[in-house]
């Protein structure tokens, strides 16, 4: 009975309690704007004592029901704005508030994750690099990869093309245009001689040079990715031509009247034979070197936000040389390579709505490399000597490669500049050809899926977390590569960055022709960096550790059992402020690396790695006399070299001789003088003359040594001539593209 009474009392009290609760709730609503009156969406609003909170809608409006009463503190937060504390008194009526947030001066520059990467973009501010800054380094031969050697992390390799980054070979760096792989960025390789790039660097508005820990959106590059973004529409129609000591070119870009589409074509021809007739070379050429290339593009704005771009590039080359044979004074050894390459890239991007972005692309390339090696006697007759080492010196190889790629990336944009990206891509490649009398055929289907998120953990803390899965039909293996990076900004604008990632790469086709019973090679990167940009100066220091697994070994059998490591510290400093019209940057690279790969008998320092490298790029303009001076300087301590030979008795490779080359020391200089011609024309053309010298001081550079079969003779691998000199005239109409032409070093 007693219990019943209590129960009744309680039951009677319940509605009362509820109504009490209801009555005690108060509505606080309002709108959050910035100091110039724009609504701030997704701002966080909370009551400090109770923790009750909400977020503003897309119009900056919010509404909270609260139980709190009396004096309370309302906290308003939003990325990019100073947190706001507002004292309110909650009484018995609803409160309506107009809140104004002040921008946070520091977070106007967002925390952008930058561990392991250098971004050169047309959006660059202050002392950050622009795409043009990157490729206007003196002596770059219009090759982005060469231009980027003035940045820390890259090795100064003079005897071949490509970027050797942080203990990685040139093959471990891959180039991408609008997300699509450029399989053969350079003309076919010639032993001991650097070859030109096929792609004109002035096509790009953004270049991301990653020397480690890059995004999950890219793969198949164990060391480094060079991610290039092509220009959308040109600002104006234009035309240009140039005539230089060893080559000439002509190009045009036409922008449609409605500024919604454009097209362009260019053609260039480069014949070093003309140049070599005047300036003698150490190398004796019987054909070329001659390079002919053309490209065409169209770009169309579709709808309000869509952009469709097509780029095609076609090129051929021929280099043939004949030099004394290292194994016999009576014989001469010939090497000729002829190449043809077609590259096509069609890309599309669009915003599907406010939240979704689509990036898609297809690429197709065809590459044909024809190599003929032969041994001739004094009269020029081909000789066959049927014994080692001469029997392998008459050689013919023809490889055709078809390569296609399809790629799609979806981006879901989230509040506070956060984003989720995911997508997939497929690479198809087919090699067919022959090596002497042996037929070569290799088909690979590589499929990848990836996802990545940009997460802003706080105003000054951002993370990028991603994962990439890859499957190769040739290796019939799956690999999963996690990637993560973190950026923390200090109140003074300095920033700490941290990155980790696993990177896979298929062994080169060279070895896959022989066996496909191999694994992906793998590298794990750990990167820590600190950057500070302020007042037209930029300082960066980065330390990293890199562990290699499953590197390709050729001995005792072709396998992926090699391993290695690389670690180092790099410094970069750029200053545009201290001296008027002077822009310079300096970099320093320390590298400690060892690897056991190919025929290395043990884990040793590879031949492409110098422990200390320093570079400087200097650009000075003299506007009063219309003159530009461009100097680059690079210094590297000696690189290791070895004579590794097969020893028949114990059936293994041994090091028979080793040493360190002398240091590398090069100064490149370029001078341009602008002239006014046809002043009376409505659109005055921009013209100029340019002269330049690579290896100004004529320093004898030694990149390594070639040994004869028994190791008794060693010959240095060096530059084909002490200096490379070029001079020429250029002219551009319409838009001022002078600096592009100047700095491309068209030679």
């Amino acid at each position: 009975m007693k219990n019943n009474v209590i129960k009744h009392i309680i039951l009677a009290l319940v509605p009362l309690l509820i109504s009490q609760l209801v009555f005690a709730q108060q509505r606080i609503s309002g709108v959050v704007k910035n100091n110039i009156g724009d609504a701030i969406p997704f701002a966080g609003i909370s009551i400090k004592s109770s923790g009750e909170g909400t977020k503003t809608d897309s119009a900056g409006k919010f509404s909270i029901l609260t139980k709190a009463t009396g004096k309370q503190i309302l906290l308003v937060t939003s990325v990019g704005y100073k947190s706001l504390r507002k004292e309110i008194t909650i009484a018995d009526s609803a409160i309506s508030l107009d809140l104004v947030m002040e921008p946070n001066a520091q977070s106007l520059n967002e925390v952008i994750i930058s561990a392991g990467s250098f971004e050169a973009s047309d959006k660059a501010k202050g002392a950050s690099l622009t795409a043009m800054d990157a490729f206007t380094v003196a002596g770059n031969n219009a090759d982005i990869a060469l231009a980027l050697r003035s940045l820390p992390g890259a090795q100064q390799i003079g005897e071949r093309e490509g970027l050797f980054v942080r203990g990685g070979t040139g093959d471990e760096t891959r180039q991408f245009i609008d997300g699509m792989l450029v399989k053969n960025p350079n003309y076919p390789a010639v032993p001991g001689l650097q070859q030109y790039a096929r792609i004109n660097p002035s096509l790009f508005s953004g270049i991301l040079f990653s020397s480690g820990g890059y995004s999950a959106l890219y793969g198949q590059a164990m060391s480094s990715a060079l991610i290039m973004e092509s220009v959308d529409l040109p600002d104006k129609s234009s035309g240009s031509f140039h005539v230089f000591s060893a080559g000439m070119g002509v190009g045009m870009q036409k922008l449609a009247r409605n500024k919604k589409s454009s097209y362009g074509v260019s053609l260039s021809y480069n014949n070093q034979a003309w140049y070599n007739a005047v300036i003698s070379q150490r190398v004796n050429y019987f054909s070329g070197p001659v390079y002919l290339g053309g490209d065409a593009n169209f770009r169309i704005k579709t709808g309000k936000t869509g952009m469709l771009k097509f780029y095609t590039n076609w090129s051929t080359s021929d280099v043939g040389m004949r030099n004394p044979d290292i194994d016999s004074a009576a014989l001469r050894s010939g090497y000729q390579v002829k190449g043809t390459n077609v590259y096509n890239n069609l890309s599309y991007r669009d915003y599907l709505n406010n939240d979704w972005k689509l990036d898609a692309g297809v690429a197709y390339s065809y590459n044909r490399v024809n190599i003929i090696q032969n041994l001739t006697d004094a009269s020029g007759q081909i000789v066959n000597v049927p014994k080692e080492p001469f029997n392998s010196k008459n050689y013919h190889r023809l490889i055709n490669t078809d390569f296609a790629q399809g790629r799609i990336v979806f981006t879901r944009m989230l509040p506070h500049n956060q984003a989720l990206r995911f997508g997939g891509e497929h690479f198809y490649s087919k090699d067919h050809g022959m090596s002497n009398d042996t037929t070569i055929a290799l088909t690979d289907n590589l499929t990848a899926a990836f996802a990545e998120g940009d997460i802003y953990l706080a105003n000054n803390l951002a993370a990028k977390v991603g994962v990439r899965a890859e499957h190769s039909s040739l290796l019939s293996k799956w690999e999963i590569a996690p990637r993560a990076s973190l950026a923390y900004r200090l109140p003074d604008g300095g920033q700490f960055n941290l990155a980790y990632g696993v990177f896979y790469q298929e062994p080169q086709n060279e070895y896959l022709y022989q066996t496909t019973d191999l694994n992906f090679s793998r590298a794990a990167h750990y990167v820590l960096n600190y950057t500070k940009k302020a007042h037209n100066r930029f300082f960066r220091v980065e330390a990293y550790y890199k562990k290699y697994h499953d590197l390709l070994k050729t001995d005792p059998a072709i396998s992926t059992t090699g391993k290695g490591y690389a670690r180092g510290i790099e410094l970069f400093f750029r200053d545009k402020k201290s001296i008027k019209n002077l822009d310079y940057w300096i970099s320093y690279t320390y590298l400690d690396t060892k690897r056991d790969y190919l025929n290395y008998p043990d884990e040793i320092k590879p031949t492409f790695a110098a422990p200390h490298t320093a570079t400087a790029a200097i650009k000075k303009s003299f506007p009063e006399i219309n003159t530009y001076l461009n100097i680059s300087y690079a210094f590297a301590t000696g690189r290791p070299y070895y004579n590794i030979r097969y020893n028949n008795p114990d059936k293994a490779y041994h090091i028979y001789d080793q040493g360190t080359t002398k240091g590398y020391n090069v100064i490149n200089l370029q001078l341009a003088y602008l002239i006014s011609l046809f002043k009376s024309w409505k659109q005055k053309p921009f013209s100029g003359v340019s002269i330049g010298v690579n290896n100004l001081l004529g320093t004898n550079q030694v990149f390594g040594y070639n040994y004869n079969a028994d190791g008794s003779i060693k010959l240095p691998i060096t530059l084909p001539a002490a200096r490379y000199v070029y001079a020429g005239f250029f002219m551009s109409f319409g838009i001022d593209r002078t600096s592009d032409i100047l700095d491309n070093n068209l030679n």
Partner: protein
Amino acid sequence: MKKLIISGLAIMLLFLSASAQQNSGALQSAVTKLDQAKTAKDYETLEKEFVKIAAAQPKDWLPNYYAAYCNAKIGFLLQDDGESIEPYSNRGEAQAKAAESLLDKNNQKKELSEVYTVISMLNQGRVFINPMTYGPKYGPIAQQFLNAAKQLNPDNPRAIYLAAWFKYNTPKMWGGDKALAKQLAAQSLKLLDNAEKGVTPHWGKTEDQELLNKYK
């Protein structure tokens, strides 16, 4: 009852005029301080003051104009600091647009000329961020607004000063002309001789003299 209404209205009117006076007083005092401003810090402090006045006088174009001018001026003072300029350019542009929207395009040509001069300066400020990439984009925009400003009021001493600044700082190759710059600065200075003080735009004297001093 009538009496009550009338006296009520009277009180309201009094109150309104007092607050209006107070507002214009605030603007005058800020403009007087602006005449003395020298460093980026000075202009930054004053910009905040103009923003407050703009909020209180939403119909008046002047507070927004002056706030934008402060931001433009900061851009010029920080020209060797690259990346730090951008937020000022963006704020300034929004304020200048706000000032422009308060003007009658047909009857307030002189005022519009002042606003366009400031927009031209703000775009030149963007060029300083990174001359190589921002120059080709924002340089022509700065030139367009300056031309528009000169067209609206050929005797605007501030537009003439800015034209002088451009002529002085552009290399000869791209159309710079130091002799013409001197002439323009002198012309601007002469026009400023009998400028009234008050709250209407009257800056430029110091800038002209600074430019002319470079010839000594």
